[in-house]
């Protein structure tokens, strides 16, 4: 039991769609829990991170907390995977990079339709946003990139099983075509 590889997952600036896709492996989740032990992940609700063999990162880096969490994952995980478009290249959240941060915040908290109590929040509890949203490999070294928005459950499954068995990672064409 203790010898099973430990896996952690996290959603940084993502929509949780990649985690939902992981859950889409359906009953294979039962096989997966036989194969691995889950460490910190929204699936277990464990909030602290131990030493792991594999870390799956959803979402890009948009604020100071994302940086901190990502760095901790890099320190703790032997292998780190960018899962999904947001982690791989910033994805949808990076669309804000075309605008200034102040402009985005004003639109969200002051000028946008239906805003009550306008005013940009400022509280030490709230992590500061970065000027731009970045893919995770711009902050730490990443070992694998799993593209897709989200990558399909089958693609995630193929990756996990191949990785855990120590096989080279290769996908059938249908798992990585997106049209």
């Amino acid at each position: 039991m203790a010898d099973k590889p430990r896996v952690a997952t996290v959603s940084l600036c993502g929509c949780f769609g990649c985690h939902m896709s992981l859950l889409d492996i359906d009953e294979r989740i039962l096989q997966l829990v036989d194969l691995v032990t889950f460490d910190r992940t929204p699936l277990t609700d464990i909030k602290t991170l131990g030493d792991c063999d594999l870390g799956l990162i959803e979402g890009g880096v948009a604020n100071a907390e994302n940086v901190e969490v990502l760095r901790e994952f890099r320190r703790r995980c032997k292998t780190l995977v960018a899962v999904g478009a947001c982690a791989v290249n910033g994805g949808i959240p990076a669309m804000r990079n075309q605008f200034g941060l102040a402009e985005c915040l004003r639109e969200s908290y002051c000028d946008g339709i239906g805003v009550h109590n306008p005013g940009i929040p400022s509280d030490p509890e709230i992590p500061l946003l970065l000027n731009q949203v970045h893919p995770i490999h711009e902050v730490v070294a990443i070992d694998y990139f799993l593209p897709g928005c989200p990558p399909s459950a089958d693609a995630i499954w193929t990756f996990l099983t191949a990785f855990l068995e120590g096989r080279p990672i290769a996908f059938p064409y249908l798992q990585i075509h997106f049209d």
Partner: protein
Amino acid sequence: MNVSAAVTVEGFVAESLATHGRDPRHLLQHLIRVQQRFSYVPDAAVEALSAALDVTRTQVRAAIAFYAFLHERPRGAFEIRFSDNITDRMLGSRRLIRLLIERLGLMGLPAWGRDLIRSDGRVSVGLASCTGMCDQGPALLINGQAVTNLDAQRVDRIADLVQEGIPLDRWPGEFFRVENNIRRRGLLLGNPATDGAALRRLLDEGADAALAEVERSGLRGRGGAGFTTALKWRFCREAPGTDRYVVCNADEGEPGTFKDRVLLTDYADLVIEGMTVCAGVIGARRGFLYLRGEYLYLLPHLESVLQRRRAEGLLGARILGRDGFDFDIEIHLGAGAYICGEESALIESLEGKRGVTRKRPPFPVTSGFDDQPTVVNNVETFLAAARVVQWGGYWLRGEGTDQSAGSKILSVSGDCARPGIYEYPFGTPVHRVLSDCGAENTQAVQISGAAGATLSPADFDRIIAFEDLPTAGSFMIFDDSRDLLDMVRNFAAFFAHESCGFCTPCRVGGALLRNLVEKVVAGQGSEYDLSEIRHIGAVMRQASYCGLGHTAPNHVLNTLDKFPSIYRRRLAREAHTPSFDLDAALSEARGIAGRNDPGAHIHALSGETA
């Protein structure tokens, strides 16, 4: 100054159409004239050309966006572009740019795609890729005209002339003087004289005999790839088609190359004779000389040579009185796009379009201009071909090596006492060139341009020949006082700028390489980034669509192998470093939230070991 109220945009376009015709393939040439006249291409010109030539507005706009010398928004009435090759930088161009900027009251520094334009519209300052004046730099272009040998005094004077609004034709003539600097003459440069002898021999002995001489000579293309010239001509001759075309590639865009400029200056007759002989062999009636925009100043000279040859019966209808031997040449200008030297992009550009490379095959010899069989050769190749037909194939074979007959004309620049043009027999070792041009303490030679190979002293015994060191003629020298990473930065920026954008490995890979090199320069790079450079470079070599992308990573990969210390000594200690300044990336949010507590900062060191 460019703009005079008297001429409307519509009127100017109408006149251009009336003089130069309504062939849609002339679109680029019309656009260049409009740009020269108005310092940009106004919307009215886009509308008028789109209507008259029956090309869509989008196509016209795409062409304007593609070519570095065409603009949608006005540039200064004096449009200045500094040549930004590494050789210009080595001669102090950066300092001079700053000086001029200051004198003109402008702010900041020009960068690729960012020209500084003074608010009164009088002057703008931008950059250009190598303008081919490396032996007499630093150089700039002003309203398309080349200015050489810049120094602080000359720049000062230029600032005065601009401030006073003196038209270019009243500027001191020596500003525009371009020297040939021929330092060593061989087979080709030894004798510029011609009286149509090659054409006479062609007519006396017939096309088959002429082609046989070219075959016997073993002549290979001088533009870089080294394809056998006779074979190219024969393929074209035998390809099915209604018309055939001869194209002289005078784009000379490879940084550090300037020999074609000299050939077109002093040997234009022979080059044109070579084109005419080719036309006779393959049966072409029309030819084009594609002249890079940077050599605009050569246009009147070349037009006059063509005109004289027409008068002498060496060009035009019934050449040398022979019925059915009709051939004439049009000069087309380029507009600042390196990729247009690649033959299929060049043909696209000749057809008035953006210079995006074509799918190959079919090659130009079967489907080139107007989808007809077309020979594209370099300037030097045509010159050599003319002499081969005149003096016979064995004449060329008298020099050179097994696989490389004859001589190669080199453009030597960088750290040496006598930069200029040197012609050597193929087989000449690199060290011979270095000693002849007075190079001392040479650290490296970049041969065949930015796309070529970086040589370290261990390579200096190697020979210039297709079988060892092939070269399109560029030979840039770096002595041991230079930081080679400056060269790498310059070339990486060049390729990122010049990628035509058609394929991802080159468009994206080029930008990534440039960013990674800059990261290393800033002292933020890590081992990981070096391995990324290697990885991206390998993908570009393997997966790019054309030669630009295939060769673009050469300089970084070569220097990583041969001069690793220029990278290593700048690496950060961590195994991986972020690609941007994390703490600075919080600056806006800190400002908005009015915070500056320790929690509002990110520390640079992550302490990670991966």
